[in-house]
């Protein structure tokens, strides 16, 4: 069988295809079909010719085979220093092989590539910072994912995720109508406590355009409410787009280059349409990477930057605290040992380490913040990045990988982990479920809401009176 009905080289672009995939629970038939999926070696060779240029080829070729990258990878450490988890070995035995054979590889090799590219690498890019030549295996694995995707060798969940983006311009089946309704609903629900709270939709020329992660409207609508309340307190002139509101990119995780471009184009179109001064994304690492760091290149912006300044949520929080738009009640600061999960996506790969520490200096009582070791740009991945959190067949591998982050957190002695990234947040939640450290974990928004000083005029009438008594 050259191609399966579910597992094939075509991306999902229609609702029917998507439903068929979803009906195949856990991808049973999908993975069976994959066993027989033919590799289109000609197309693979063409793709290599067009996209595998001197940087990647030189990386693969000059690798000294020195093994200095071994200890940098949390998978290697968590698996008892298994040599097959050495980043250089992983990439040489997968992409290296494809390039050396100029695409003449078989089905078994492509399935092995898939296992390694998604199940043994989260594209955290830590190894690249330890290689003397700066050979970045994370970059190469995300390239390999693109090759795998184009040949149909992609985990079931990510084939679906890519389809969701292509159909809904969101990682989940949330339509623009659903999104706007959720915003309205959240707003109404908060009116008792926050009279006058608004979530302006499609306002032109606002100071801030806010984009989020589709999980928020779908599963955690309170997050949108919290964002709205914080903007309300800070007195920001802000809005959300009815279209182009989902900043995430399972397409990026899937290696669906075309789909990733379409997703970012949708957001940039909203920017063009609504002309905000700045855009602000939610507390998500990979969404920031997709839309702000890599996205400009996908859509072909030669300056490598989004059309207007595009902040990560932590940048806005730090600014609001610095300028006094948000004021913290010193009595309510965090007074227990607390640590911070540095997201690879916007710390190692964007440089926001100072901004996040600045936030900590406002919200944690001096003396209670404990850094993980290592931290900042050298922090380890939480263990669930690169889409791994969502992939069923690699669940056990992921859970083993968690051990490194588990031990890092344990060593801090902190019972609270601040995790301003959806993926990290999920990973730490799952880690707690498995390893029972007795920790709590939180985004910034709920923490801020517990300690921010609410200006008198924003309080509901009765409550304001009660407090005066």
């Amino acid at each position: 069988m050259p191609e399966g009905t579910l597992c094939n080289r075509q991306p999902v672009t229609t609702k029917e295809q998507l439903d068929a995939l979803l009906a195949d629970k856990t991808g049973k038939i999908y993975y069976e079909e994959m066993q027989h999926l033919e590799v289109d070696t000609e197309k693979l060779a063409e793709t290599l010719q067009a996209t595998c240029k001197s940087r990647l080829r030189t990386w693969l070729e000059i690798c000294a085979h020195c093994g200095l990258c071994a200890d940098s990878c949390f998978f290697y450490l968590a698996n008892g220093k298994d040599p097959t988890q050495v980043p250089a070995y992983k990439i040489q035995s997968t992409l290296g092989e494809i390039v050396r054979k100029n695409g003449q590889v078989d089905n078994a090799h492509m399935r092995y590539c898939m296992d390694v590219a998604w199940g043994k690498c989260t594209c955290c890019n830590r190894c690249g910072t330890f290689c003397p030549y700066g050979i970045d295996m994370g970059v190469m694995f995300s390239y390999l994912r693109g090759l795998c995707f184009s040949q149909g060798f992609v985990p079931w969940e990510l084939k679906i995720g890519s389809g969701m983006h292509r159909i809904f311009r969101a990682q989940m089946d949330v339509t623009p109508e659903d999104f706007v309704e959720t915003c309205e609903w959240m707003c109404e629900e908060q009116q008792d406590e926050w009279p006058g709270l608004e979530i302006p939709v499609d306002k032109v020329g606002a100071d801030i355009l806010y984009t989020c992660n589709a999980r928020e409207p779908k599963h955690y609508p309170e997050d949108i409410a919290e964002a709205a309340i914080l903007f309300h307190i800070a007195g920001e002139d802000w809005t959300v787009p009815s279209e182009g509101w989902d900043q995430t990119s399972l397409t990026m995780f899937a290696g669906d280059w075309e789909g990733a471009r379409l997703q970012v184009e949708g957001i940039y179109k909203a920017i063009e349409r609504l002309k905000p001064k700045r855009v602000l994304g939610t507390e998500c690492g990979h969404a920031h990477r997709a839309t702000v760091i890599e996205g400009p290149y996908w859509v072909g912006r030669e300056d490598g930057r989004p059309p207007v300044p595009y902040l990560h949520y932590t940048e806005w929080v730090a600014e609001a605290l610095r300028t006094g738009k948000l004021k913290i009640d010193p009595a309510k600061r965090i007074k227990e040992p607390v640590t911070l999960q540095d997201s690879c996506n916007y710390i190692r790969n964007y440089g926001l380490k100072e901004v996040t520490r600045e936030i900590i200096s406002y919200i944690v009582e001096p003396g209670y913040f404990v850094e993980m070791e290592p931290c900042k740009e050298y922090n380890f991945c939480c263990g669930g990045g690169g889409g791994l959190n969502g992939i069923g067949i690699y669940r056990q591998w992921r859970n083993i990988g968690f051990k490194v982050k588990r031990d890092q957190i344990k060593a801090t002695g902190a019972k609270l982990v601040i995790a301003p990234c959806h993926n990290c947040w999920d990973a730490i939640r799952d880690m707690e479920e498995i390893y029972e450290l007795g920790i709590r974990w939180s985004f910034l928004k709920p923490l801020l809401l517990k300690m921010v000083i609410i200006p008198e005029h924003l309080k509901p009438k009765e409550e304001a009176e009660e407090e005066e008594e």
Partner: protein
Amino acid sequence: MYQFITGPLLWLTFIIFFGGLAFRVVWYIRGLDWRLDRVAYRAYPALGLKGALSSIIHWLIPYGSHGWRAKPLYTLVFFIFHAGLVVVPLFLAGHAVLLDERWGISWWPTISMALADTLTIGVMVTAVIILVRRLVLPEVRILTTFYDIFLILVSVAPFVTGFLVVHQVRDYTFWLYAHILSGELLLVLIPFTKLFHVVGFFLSRGQIGMDFGIKRAWKSRKGFAW
């Protein structure tokens, strides 16, 4: 024989060496693609240059980067090995004599014989350590093939033979010829093997430095902390 291997053959070696390196450097730089690499090389020349220099310099200095500091012993071995590899052939008094005789370059700086000997012994000792490490540590062993061992041997051969020549063991002529030929073999192989890193190191480190300077660490005040 001597005339041939230090005459036409040497010229051929230099042509292949410099020509090969030049070709690869041009091929590398021309193959950089701002969109595929996702680095806006042209848009931020200042950030790019700063990033590239910072990346190269931190990694050229012993213990100058997080990576080198993470492996203190290996770093020591590595720098002793490379100090000899780079300094001895370029600044050996015996080589300078040839430069003067052949091309009349008389201003070329040289090092003392004692230093040359020390560095050469350093190369030979560290080469053994590197070889043993390759075979003993599982994480290096899994990456090692005959190719790697072969290249270490080729890299060290001119040093071993040169050492024997200078110290006048028996068979002077044999070792001299072996020295010259192994040196020529090394030079010919450099552009076409992983030894291309002699130049490739600077290209590759420069590129990743630009990546971090322009894109991946541009929000950090001091750039990426290598």
